């Protein structure tokens, strides 16, 4: 007689040891990106090719700034986990660990740089506005 429930016996037996968390994250973030990305393409496409004043004016407004932050954060986490899936399919051992760490590092660095740039562009836009009055 075993006093373990069926669930306890099954937990941790899958190849990932994390159940369907990874798959569910990709599904949930893909739905978020399905709404964010087309809007971002429009905003970014309009800003690209403009002089610096136009770029600052665009990204210091709340909607483009918050939209860009969301696209980068959700997009880069989605990328990191997707890249991890590819790396785990084709490599093993230490190389696999190193490459997954690299993918995660790139993704977090891009997020940090983008948030820094957006914060600073907002501040510059605010100063321009203040000087104009």
């Amino acid at each position, binding site marked *: 007689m075993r006093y373990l429930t069926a669930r306890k016996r099954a937990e941790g037996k899958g190849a990932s040891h994390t159940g369907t968390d990874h798959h569910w994250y990709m*599904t949930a973030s*893909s*739905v978020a*990106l*399905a709404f964010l*990305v*087309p809007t971002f*393409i*429009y905003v*970014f*496409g*309009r800003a*690209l*090719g403009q002089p*610096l004043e136009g*770029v*600052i004016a665009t*990204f210091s407004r709340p909607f483009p700034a918050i939209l*860009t932050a969301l696209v*980068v954060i959700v*997009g*880069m986490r989605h*990328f990191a986990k*997707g*890249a991890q899936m*590819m790396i785990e399919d084709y490599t093993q051992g230490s190389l696999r660990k190193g490459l997954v760490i690299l993918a995660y590092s*790139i993704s977090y660095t*891009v997020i940090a*740089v*983008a948030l*820094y*740039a*957006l914060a*600073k*562009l907002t501040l*510059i836009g605010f100063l321009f506005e203040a000087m104009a009055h």
Partner: protein
Amino acid sequence: MAEVKRVERPLSPHLQIYRPQMTSVSSILTRITGNALIVGVILAVWWLLAAATSPAYFNVANAVATSWFGDLVFTGSLWAVWYHYLAGLRHLLWDTGRGMDIETAEKLGWACVIGSVVLTLITIILV
């Protein structure tokens, strides 16, 4: 179960001898486009960082971003993002258990390829 006997098993048909099919090609393209998008993202975020740093730095990044190289990266990324977008929608459909038969899956593959090109052209014209 202590002794595991190694049995000579036949290898499953390998990629190299498989005829490319719409289902396999559209699947691997999803992975390639998704991972390749990091190039366009890095260029875009670098351009944004330059805009936040100084006019001189912005001129450098903007010159790269609007050069033939920048056009190539951003146009390629635009197609890649639309392809990955449609392929992602296809996965969401598959997650509901629909469209799994070969005929529908192949049609969906063509929809991703043709749809992504159409959406790319529309985006270039409109934006």
